[in-house]
């Protein structure tokens, strides 16, 4: 039964060829979130030594080629890959990746400069995505995209280098951040 669900998810992901929301999987396969979560764990382990990998990003999952075979697939790729990141992009991306999403006010606050242009450029490149903040519908949160995780060769943000080491540090350091930036956000157009 559960095994069956795992193969169903795999088939759906393969057919779609793009990220799918877990909520959508629940509805489509008529099962609970718990069952989905369990099946995903099983699928991940089934795919652990294969040519295809499961990538997770927030509430979405997708399939991609395994990062270890990157150079093989890169030769087959027709479109040009842009592997350049400016200093401003690196700073902005590290905040978004390691904080698991950030508002523009927070990014501006940490960087000490206006980041709207950098964010737009990263968004055009598909490396970050702008979504409404679930906690505050008046503001936007920038989140890492699948494209970003793919370029980093990680199956989820937890696989980022130093992720667990710095997570706690960030938690402590950014405790006041939300309070501080809320004051600023109210006065901004964005």
């Amino acid at each position, binding site marked *: 039964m559960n095994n069956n669900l795992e193969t169903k998810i795999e088939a759906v992901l393969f057919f779609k060829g793009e990220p799918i929301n877990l909520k959508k999987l629940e509805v489509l396969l008529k099962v609970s979130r718990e069952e989905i979560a369990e099946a995903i764990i099983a699928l991940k382990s089934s795919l652990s030594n294969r040519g295809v990998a499961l990538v997770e990003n927030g509430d979405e999952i997708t399939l991609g080629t395994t990062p270890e075979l990157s150079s093989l697939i*890169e030769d087959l790729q027709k479109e040009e890959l842009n592997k350049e990141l400016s200093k401003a992009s690196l*700073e902005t991306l*590290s905040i978004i990746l390691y904080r698991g999403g950030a508002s523009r006010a927070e990014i501006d606050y940490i960087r000490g400069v206006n980041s709207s242009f950098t964010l737009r450029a990263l968004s055009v490149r598909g490396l970050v995505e702008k979504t409404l903040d679930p906690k505050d519908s008046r503001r936007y949160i920038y989140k890492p995209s699948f494209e970003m995780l793919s370029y980093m060769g990680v199956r989820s943000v937890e696989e980022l280098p130093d992720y667990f080491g710095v997570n706690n540090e960030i938690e402590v350091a950014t405790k006041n951040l939300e309070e501080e930036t809320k004051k600023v956000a109210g006065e901004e157009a964005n």
Partner: protein
Amino acid sequence: METDTYQIKVSGFEGPFGLLLDLIEKRKLHISDVSLADVTEDYLKYMREIGGLKPAQVSSFLVVASTLLLIKSKSLLPSLPLTSDEEGDIKSLEERLRLYELFTRLGGNIKTTFGKQIIFAPEERRQGIVVFLPDEQITRESMMVFVKDVLGSIPKKTFMPGVEVRKVISIEEMIESLSGRIQTSLKMSFRDLHGQAGTSKEEKVVVIVGFLAMLELVRQGLIDAIQESHNGDIIMEKMAGGPVQETGTNEELTTENNEQ
């Protein structure tokens, strides 16, 4: 002197934190109010040499400069009274700088990893279904509305956050008031210092007088920096145009600026 050996590459920094961190690291210090006071003069020297920066950049450098001035004044004259807002500014500068340092370090991780081992999504499959499936939302009128909405939402130019504009406009005022406060506090400190061993007293006064002179230089340099920037932005108009006006007007201008 040690400070003279610093080779600061003008315009090598997008924002003030990169510069500050660089100055602190060159002196092999950690982020603290003490190290910030130490690098204040280097920072202000950079500010004076700065040229060709965009108004938005100038503003972020100035905001930090004003906080550094407070830190430096306080370190020279511990008796200088600070408002709770000013103390907050100092604390938050340290905090922001630590955060910035952390994320710059993590940015290094991204730099070394990005694009090295890529996970590829499948290519677009060629044999797409060749059926035509429109949607009743597509009409001549709706398409025109959609395209005009998209065009309307393109940002025209990068603008400055409102808060920083106001801070920039008041920095000239702040320098003036700071000079006054230091002088007042210095007279009081004279009495405080009177009974103590006299050697450091004169030295200290010399340092403080030097600092006051520097404040005046910064004020001049700041005006130069702003005048050198490209025209067409409200900040230069404000700063070059003379005395500062009340905040209400500035906010209005900022909003206009955003919506242009």
